[in-house]
């Protein structure tokens, strides 16, 4: 009986929310199946960057990895890939939670100085709308090296 009830509810309400979802999640999905997740809707594909299999497996983020711990040497790339939208906005403002987190993946304790730098070098680190996460990461890394304050204080450089 309960299944009938829920089915009726679902017929009414499920059509839109569950349609067209695509997931880039990690875990045992490879063993079961890939593609979708019931708990989110179709926006996931644009909010999570789509990682290539090679990059994802290298970073331990794909479903084929034995566990989904992001390897240290790829944390920055993963972060940039996944948060391009937020980073593009917060870097233009020179401040924000995502920029502060981006600073920390480079080991920069002074997120204010980091924010100021990426804001000042905005068009250099994000030269176009289609700049990839890897490019952003490498561009920022290069700018940190060129910055006297940050290059000496960011521990992971």
């Amino acid at each position, binding site marked *: 009986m309960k299944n009938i009830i829920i089915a009726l509810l679902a017929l009414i309400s499920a059509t839109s929310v569950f349609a067209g979802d695509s997931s880039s999640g990690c875990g045992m999905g490879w063993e079961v*199946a890939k593609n979708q997740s019931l708990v989110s809707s179709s926006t996931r594909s644009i909010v999570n960057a789509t990682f290539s299999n090679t990059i994802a497996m290298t970073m331990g983020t794909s479903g084929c990895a034995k566990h989904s711990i992001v390897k240290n040497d790829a944390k920055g790339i993963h972060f940039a890939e996944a948060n391009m939208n937020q980073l593009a906005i917060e870097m233009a403002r*020179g401040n924000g939670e995502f920029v502060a987190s981006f600073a920390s993946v480079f080991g920069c304790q002074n997120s204010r100085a980091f924010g100021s730098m990426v804001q000042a070098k905005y068009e250099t680190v994000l030269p176009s709308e289609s700049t990839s996460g890897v490019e952003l990461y490498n561009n920022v890394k290069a700018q940190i090296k060129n910055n006297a304050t940050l290059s000496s204080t960011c521990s992971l450089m």
Partner: protein
Amino acid sequence: MRLFLLLVLLCNLLVPAAFAAGISFDNLSSDQKDYWLKLLHYHKNSSRADSEKFFVSPMGKNNPNAELLADIDVFNDPFAKAGWFNYHPQCVFRERFEFLKRIGFLNGVKEQPCAELKEWVNGLNAESISLIFSSSYPNNPSSLFGHTMIRLNQSGKAANNTSDLLDYSVAFSAIPEHEDMGLVFAIKGMFGGYKGILEITKYYTKVNEYNNGESRDLIEYDLNMTPDELHRLLNHLWEIYQTTYFDYFFADENCSAVLVDILAVPFNHDNVNSHARWFYLPSEMIKVFKKIPGRIKSENFRASLKKQLEKQISIMPNNDVSELKKMASLKELRADYSNIPVLDGVISLLDFTRYRTKDQLTPDQKSMFRKALIRRSALAQAKVTDPLVYDQNNRPDLGHEPQKFSFFLRTEEAHSLIGVELKEGYHDLMSNDAGYDPFSQFDFFTGSLLYDKKLNRVSYDQLTFVNLISLHTYKFFDPQFSWAAKILSDRLYDLDCDLCHKFNARAYLGPTFKPTSKMALSLMTGVFGELSRHLEKGFRAGVGMEGSFLFQVTEKMKIGLFDELRFDATKKIKKDYYNQIGFKQSYFTGINNEWRLESSMVSKFKTFSTNTWINQLNYGFFF
């Protein structure tokens, strides 16, 4: 004799050594039995884990004793392998191994190295956890129940100046095997057909997905927990992660139901997973932890992208808002433009539009977005300010329980009636909005019985399968209509017919405006259908419209005014109509208690003259 020896040999091979040593499930203490069953995810004599790799014994899914004995055997076997990746069972079923060792069932066993597990635990670097509740997806009542996950908080965040975004999150999610659309998806979700797995990802992916992509608030509950509880949780997460999926059912084996079963392992004395109802709601998980003294350390509210934009606009002067609207539709941006609040507003508006339209900004919008970002980067660095304060009334721990039982006294013209109503769920427009999305309704499976004193008859009053109303505010940055849909059987009041019923369905659409956060004004129109043997042709169908005004007067009182007009298009649509107008008041005497006064008038079919006056006093309690 040879036969006898052969039988003895076979018995030795088939009977686990642990059994031979007198170890059995029955010999465990009550607490130990309970813990073992939690580790195996048992519910009513069977485990909910559905991969055979989760069990060492072929009978493990239904026989906890067989699993206990088989586990002890493989833990003692240095060459045994288990799980997806063929690690040693001691490394795969880590919490089972440590539990059995703690209670003395594995004395003398040689411990195997578990490098992968150590790497995983070190990578997570967790020192505590937070429960994360995601509010519903706006204008989508099927997500009204919300969603839950946990966050593994890294150690030393404050010292290292790192944010929660870099933590890992753990969620239980169903994985459809194909691109199933609506109906197939829903049916499979109800009756089984999808597999659910643990998804472990960086928390920033979830913040992006829920906060930004779906404009859902994230409410974070940081827990107090001991190192031992954390250790056992990680062990258990690992053994699930390495071995099993769960068949996914929307009602009682969903994202929160499985997650709370996992949490029942480290918090084994807190009775967090009682599963008292036939369905399990995400809010239930939060509420149970909230009730445990001292378990929740602190709470944090991450407002959705939409709320952030609303707040940003609400604190701008009117002329800045006008300028923002104008600029967002332009192709060019002045090179010397320097009004930072407006520029920030344009950026936020276009960002929200990008998510709302699923990355379908027009070329002009894309161009303006890029120009606004570049221009903004040339202006002053944003200051670190105090966090903005958001309305947090939708926190799940504030809400009433989902099921409701009501008593009512009613008059229908000269008839006096008394009745009872049982609602399985969940929340309606006149209920207390604390803990829920304001002005939302998702009622399902509700039935009422009444006694008509004058007729001396008992009858059902109404049976609701589903009754949904989503009053989504129509705003310039989010121009979406509200909608309503219902399928039920209720009373026929516009004809002279005592205790008559009709099958009643409708689907309406229209705009809603909210002059303040406590007020909603809605006008919807759409189609309806009615079936009843008391109707002239046995049915009516046509166009209907409904206007409603809702006002949360105080924390304890809400009023609503409703008017619905229906035109029967199967006959002369201009003449065949009826109208129902009603005024409702709710008084909340506690989170789970409310009184309602309702008064409505239904016109006589084909006229606006009164056919039936209905007055009702109702007391209901949620449970």
